[in-house]
């Protein structure tokens, strides 16, 4: 029945065309275009460009010490973020879950920072780091608060971490709380009767029942941490010098505020993309195996 098949395709195209058109123009073509330009020496202004093979990739990973530094800085940030963001969110979720009357209150308070945009958060924290904490240190015995939170690169790594955690923990907390509510009560009770300590109950009953949420939250934090931009932009601007520059900021500067080497910057973007792809793939395939059914 060729007519029916034809009609089926027409209706498929009519329903998907509006979404697909905008998707193709603003996402699909730029994705492919970026990959294409990463093999060229295009500067974004000239019409002409040459193919340079893998030269951009070799330069980025071999000669560009700023980029390599930003790569390591980002990786360090990713490791800290994935561990801390999940650990803190899970800890808070488990503790909140034990409260009866104050549960809603704590959930509201801990999620609130997440509603404020990251860039606004980092401006607020800039105030805290440069004005509030030094003054508190001066007036009280809490001398350790008087740090060069933003000016000293080895300290500002932790400042970046603090702001990211402050902003991001709430989101994971909500997901963990929902997962904890799904743990069947009878399993916990059975464990109590069998004489399991609270910690054993958490490790052997709760954790296996929420592995799905853990997988999702690891995926979200991993992906988000690799793409960190606003916190660093708002807090240190990558400085002093380029000491706190992350990959995305390095790409941004390369393409928009330095020398307009679009082809070269595209190669860096492709490196970021491939890195996220590989690590996400590993994470998902490792963690999926551990999930159990209720």
């Amino acid at each position, binding site marked *: 029945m060729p007519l029916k098949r034809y009609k089926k395709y027409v209706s498929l195209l009519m329903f998907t065309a509006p979404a697909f058109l905008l998707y193709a123009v603003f996402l699909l073509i730029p994705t492919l275009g*970026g990959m294409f330009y990463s093999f060229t020496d295009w500067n974004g202004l000239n019409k002409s460009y040459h193919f340079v093979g893998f030269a951009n990739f070799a330069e980025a990973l071999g000669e560009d010490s700023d980029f390599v530094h930003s790569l390591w800085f980002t990786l360090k940030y990713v490791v800290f973020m994935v561990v801390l963001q999940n650990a803190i969110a899970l800890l808070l979720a488990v503790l909140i879950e034990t409260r009866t009357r104050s549960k809603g209150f704590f959930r*509201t308070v801990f999620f609130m920072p997440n509603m404020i945009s990251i860039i606004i958060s980092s401006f607020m924290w800039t105030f805290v780091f440069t004005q509030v904490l030094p003054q508190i240190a001066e007036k009280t015995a809490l001398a350790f608060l008087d740090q060069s939170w933003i000016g000293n690169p080895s300290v500002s790594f932790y400042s970046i971490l603090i702001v990211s955690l402050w902003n991001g923990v709430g989101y994971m907390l909500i997901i963990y709380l929902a997962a904890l509510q799904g743990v069947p009560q009878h399993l916990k009770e059975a464990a109590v009767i069998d004489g399991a300590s609270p910690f054993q109950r958490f490790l052997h009953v709760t954790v296996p029942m929420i592995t799905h949420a853990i997988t999702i939250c690891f995926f979200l934090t991993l992906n988000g941490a690799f793409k960190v931009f606003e916190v660093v932009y708002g807090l240190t601007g990558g400085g002093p010098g380029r000491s706190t520059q992350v990959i995305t900021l390095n790409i*941004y500067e390369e393409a928009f505020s330095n020398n307009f080497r679009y082809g070269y910057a595209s190669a860096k*973007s492709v490196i970021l993309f491939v890195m996220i792809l590989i690590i996400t793939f590993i994470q998902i395939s490792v963690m999926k195996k551990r999930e159990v059914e209720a």
Partner: protein
Amino acid sequence: MTIRKTTSFFVLLFLLAAAIIAVFPIYMAVLNSFKTQEEMFRSVLALPSRLHWENYSQAFHKIHMLNSTVNTVTISAIGIGGILFTASLAGYKLSRTGGKLSNAIFFLFVASMLVPFHSIMIPLSRMAKNLSVQGSTYGLALIYIGLGVNMAIFLYHGFVKSIPRELEESAQIDGCNEFQSFFRIIFPLLLPITVTIAILDFLWIWNDFLLPLLMLTDVDRYTLILSTNMLFGEYNKEWSLILAALVLTAIPVVVIYAFFQKFIMEGITEGAVKG
């Protein structure tokens, strides 16, 4: 029993301490936004001598509050409306149609969810320039639709499976064409997932910084966050003014949070579970 009570007490104490840390920067920003610069230097923790509202009226003008809010609302509304409209159509049809073409299109949408924005920002800004949508409010909204449909289609696609086919079949027997049966029968049934998508996209578009930074050049078109970012750069160290601007920028989201808290939290959980 006493051991349990003490533990419970310490848990409460710990949570309260954590809550204070969570609220502290916001409290500091609000408190000091009502002070003069000198009062701030004397003590950041003390209460202001009186409420210096003039910080706010100054900030209100400097970030073009009304204009910036209108811009942000326009971009969010068109962006979210566009995503919901186009993605519900596509997600529904892709879910109902079998075959290689349908699967291929769906795969293309879903695979693109892994592409980080920073990997496409360079070609995207070229594309915007070439199509001369750069600098335009509506152009930016269109870009948000293009970037947002993939996740929305993914969520709609999954949700449509739970709706029995008999519904639209009987509607078609009653003389509805495909679009009529979609908008009259199916779309209302998609409401729960529509709300989820709308919330996730609202949080994304309203709080987004980098895309507007790349796309908008004219101060009159700036979103709230861009205006505040500009003010932060220009009035470096004038904290009373900056803090007032930060609080003004945060107020709309906090109000929305106060009203829609339940929906927002459900939306995040739904989005995470399906994703």
